[in-house]
């Protein structure tokens, strides 16, 4: 850009920024309490809409004035719906409340906003250091995180561009526009940023490749086709801070010389689609996107494309095919998309998290970014941690933190004081790691070495009650359905893998099945074109490697050690403990499999039982008479009285 142009950019942006600050100050300085409610999909699913309504109603009822500020997701899914109440007049710091039901909301309005009593029994923590209430920054779930990409998530209103600008948003785009594209790429290359979509390709190198093609129109695509069942960080980022992603796209497009960009987001994420579409419009209106960005000579048009839900479309060549209107089947590479991509034009495809990392990198500099994380994997990693863990949700940590720290310190360990068994990293393409790997540092290379992979960042923690064979079967069931069918090994190979695993979980496994699983897995890996097929056997291979005894128990003893595979387990009632006349289990049984014995205790009709485990939950703890066993023939014989007598008892 010419010096004149640079000056114009500053003038134009400063005017926008001033306006944004005016909006922020007006909100900040209003002499009324502020209520911040987390309203991303996870919050809404937990009832945030009802909570918001309750707050509004209660404010009217009690004639109290307050501002409600809807924000994105804090990442603390275990605590949803999350509310922060900032009531300076009460003398308390802003307070973080968790699981705020409509009832709690009404009570807080009346007693805290109205009466100045923060109701200590419901307080989770204060958001800043103070003398009265423990601060959340003292909790390891908060202070061991390092938020770069998600820094603003849960703090700003995703529907208000001014909120983002007032928090320094779009200032790095201005910074970038004043640099030469080469300098931007140099900075990104120097930062060592690696693609966060899973494979970890150096972002700077990708951009450079695209930059070197000079004679053609280029396209930038933001890949938000997050198909991994159990991973949702891309969605959360788009829903909580869409502008940071758009800013990253704009910087990328400027660096590689593209004037067209696309956000490929799953249509299963309606809120993300809406928020991104709105965000683009807002940015265009202010001149931060569109023609002549900030009065410079740089144009960028961003469109939203709704993906239709095919896991394989996370693969870049398949994603391109689907935008072109075909079945999303991967293509041969080379040519790589950076040379010949969408509509045969050079195309840069980056993941949401990669692009959202770009603004902080340019803001604080590559050296700063390199100082976080490890030598070969600088920066942070975002995981969605779910399963049998206490503090489930989104966590952003520096690369290199060990799995033990992540699971036990940050996320509070395993639920119900159970024993840790395994952690599954990387979704259907990743692997299961056992206890021995808890001290493995989390980064691209160490995880791959251990047999798992960074993947999209889904992490499922499993306790001792989870059967590894069944988990492997679950992932195979998923990949088998999602295989596009192009490569024979993937299409038919995964089908047979699944059939073998199904056989095992039913107790019909044969001698030699384990060896067959191994060879078949290797063949699928070798014979598939894209990442889906190449990684589909990973859950099987890793669980087979680290939990082989469990597989063997399924085959040799027809037993499921974790008591999870339903055909291999059975329920019965310990007649010594069963209370005479109690009907708790019988009333909750969905299939009426519970019968009353001749002395008014209970028995299970094994033919009818579907093994849902409801009776186990329903049995009062003082009796605790329900037993679950594997293999099923361990069940003692309990005589069922003839049908007629049963009716009499009823």
């Amino acid at each position, binding site marked *: 850009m010419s010096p004149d142009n640079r000056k114009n950019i500053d003038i134009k942006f400063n005017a926008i920024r001033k306006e944004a600050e005016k909006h922020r100050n007006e909100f900040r300085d209003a002499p009324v309490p502020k209520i911040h409610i987390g309203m991303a999909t*996870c919050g809404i699913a937990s009832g945030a809409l009802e909570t918001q309504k309750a707050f509004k109603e209660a404010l009217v009822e009690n004639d109290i004035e307050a501002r409600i500020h809807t924000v994105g997701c804090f990442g603390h899914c275990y605590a949803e719906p999350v509310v922060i109440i900032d009531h300076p007049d009460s003398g308390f710091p802003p307070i973080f409340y968790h699981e705020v039901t409509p009832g709690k909301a009404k009570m807080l309005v009346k007693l805290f906003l109205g009466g100045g009593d923060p109701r200590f029994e419901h307080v989770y923590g204060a958001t800043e250091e103070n003398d009265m209430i423990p601060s959340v920054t003292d909790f390891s779930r908060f202070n061991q995180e390092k938020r770069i990409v998600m820094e603003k998530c849960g703090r700003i209103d995703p529907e208000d561009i001014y909120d983002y600008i007032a928090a320094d948003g779009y200032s790095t785009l201005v910074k970038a526009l004043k640099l030469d594209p080469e300098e931007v790429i140099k900075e990104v290359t120097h930062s060592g940023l690696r693609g966060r979509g899973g494979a970890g390709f150096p972002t700077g190198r990708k951009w450079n490749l695209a930059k070197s093609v000079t004679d053609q129109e280029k396209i930038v695509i933001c890949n938000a086709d997050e198909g991994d069942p159990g*991973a949702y960080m891309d969605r959360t980022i788009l829903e909580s801070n869409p502008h940071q992603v758009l800013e990253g796209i704009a910087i990328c497009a400027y660096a590689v010389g593209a004037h067209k960009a696309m956000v490929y987001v799953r249509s299963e994420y309606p809120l993300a689609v809406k928020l991104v579409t709105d965000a683009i419009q807002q940015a265009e209106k202010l001149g931060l996107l569109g023609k002549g960005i900030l009065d410079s000579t740089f144009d960028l048009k961003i469109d939203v494309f709704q993906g239709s839900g095919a896991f394989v479309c996370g693969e870049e060549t398949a994603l391109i095919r689907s935008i072109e209107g075909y079945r999303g089947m991967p293509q041969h590479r080379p040519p790589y998309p950076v040379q010949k991509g969408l509509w045969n034009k050079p195309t840069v495809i980056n993941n949401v998290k990669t692009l959202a990392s770009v603004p902080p990198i340019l803001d604080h500099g590559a050296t700063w970014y390199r100082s976080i994380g490890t030598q070969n994997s600088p920066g942070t990693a975002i995981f969605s941690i779910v399963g049998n863990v206490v503090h489930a949700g989104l966590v952003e940590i520096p690369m290199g933190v060990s799995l033990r720290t992540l699971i036990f310190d940050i996320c509070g360990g395993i639920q119900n004081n159970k024993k840790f068994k395994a952690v599954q990293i990387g979704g259907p393409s990743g692997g299961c790691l056992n206890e021995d790997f808890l001290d493995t540092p989390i980064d691209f290379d160490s995880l791959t070495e251990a047999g798992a992979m960074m993947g999209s960042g889904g992490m499922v923690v499993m306790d001792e009650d989870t059967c590894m064979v069944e988990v492997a079967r679950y992932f195979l069931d998923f990949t088998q359905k999602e295989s596009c069918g192009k490569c024979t090994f993937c299409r038919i190979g995964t089908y047979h893998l699944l059939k073998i695993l199904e056989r095992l979980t039913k107790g019909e496994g044969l001698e030699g099945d384990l060896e067959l699983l191994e060879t078949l897995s290797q063949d699928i890996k070798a014979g598939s074109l894209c990442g889906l097929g190449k990684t589909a056997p990973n859950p099987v291979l890793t669980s087979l490697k680290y939990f082989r005894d469990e597989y063997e128990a399924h085959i040799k003893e027809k037993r499921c050690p974790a008591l999870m595979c339903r055909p291999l387990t059975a329920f019965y009632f310990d007649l010594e403990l069963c209370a005479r006349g109690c009907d708790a289990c019988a009333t909750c049984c969905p299939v009426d499999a519970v019968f009353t014995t001749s002395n008014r205790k209970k028995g299970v009709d094994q033919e009818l039982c579907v093994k849902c485990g409801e009776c186990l939950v329903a049995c009062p703890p003082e009796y605790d008479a329900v037993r679950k066993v594997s293999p099923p023939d361990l069940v003692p014989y309990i005589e069922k009285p003839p049908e007629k007598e049963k009716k009499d008892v009823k």
Partner: protein
Amino acid sequence: MNEELTEEEKEALKHIALKLETFEKHRGNLIPILQMVQNNLAYLPSEALKIVAQHLGIIESEVYGVATFYNQFRFHPPGKYPVKVCLGTACHVKAGDIILENFERKLEISDGETTPDREFSIERVACVGCCALAPVAIIDETVHGHMAPSKVEGLILRIKLQEEIEEREKKKNEPGQS
């Protein structure tokens, strides 16, 4: 795909034909068009695929091939109360499949189907994003967390009762109106 179209759907189809004209005849528009049709009709009847194919000048089997490739598109009309059972990883670990099975048993249809009276349909979905509430089921946009097999019957009953109450109210109001 052999359900008869209702009068309403026939009307909607005409509306779709008009709307199609706003889309450029460009292959890249195929998926956005199919999404538009499904937004209007809630599913893709074969009649709709036919007019889409005509509009883009490609053969019908091509359209069908693309539509069946993606999970988003459905070829049966959904029920009035669509039941979606989450089978994401977290829900699976917490026995979401048992919940699905219970719905299937109670409604006497399997996943992907609709009850003959078009009241309920069952669908399995991947992660709805509230893994902390697992296992999760969604009935008609309302999320029900911490599902248990014994809750299934209650939920279905509640909907049926509510319908009955509404119908009774309607009947009560009718004579007053006339």
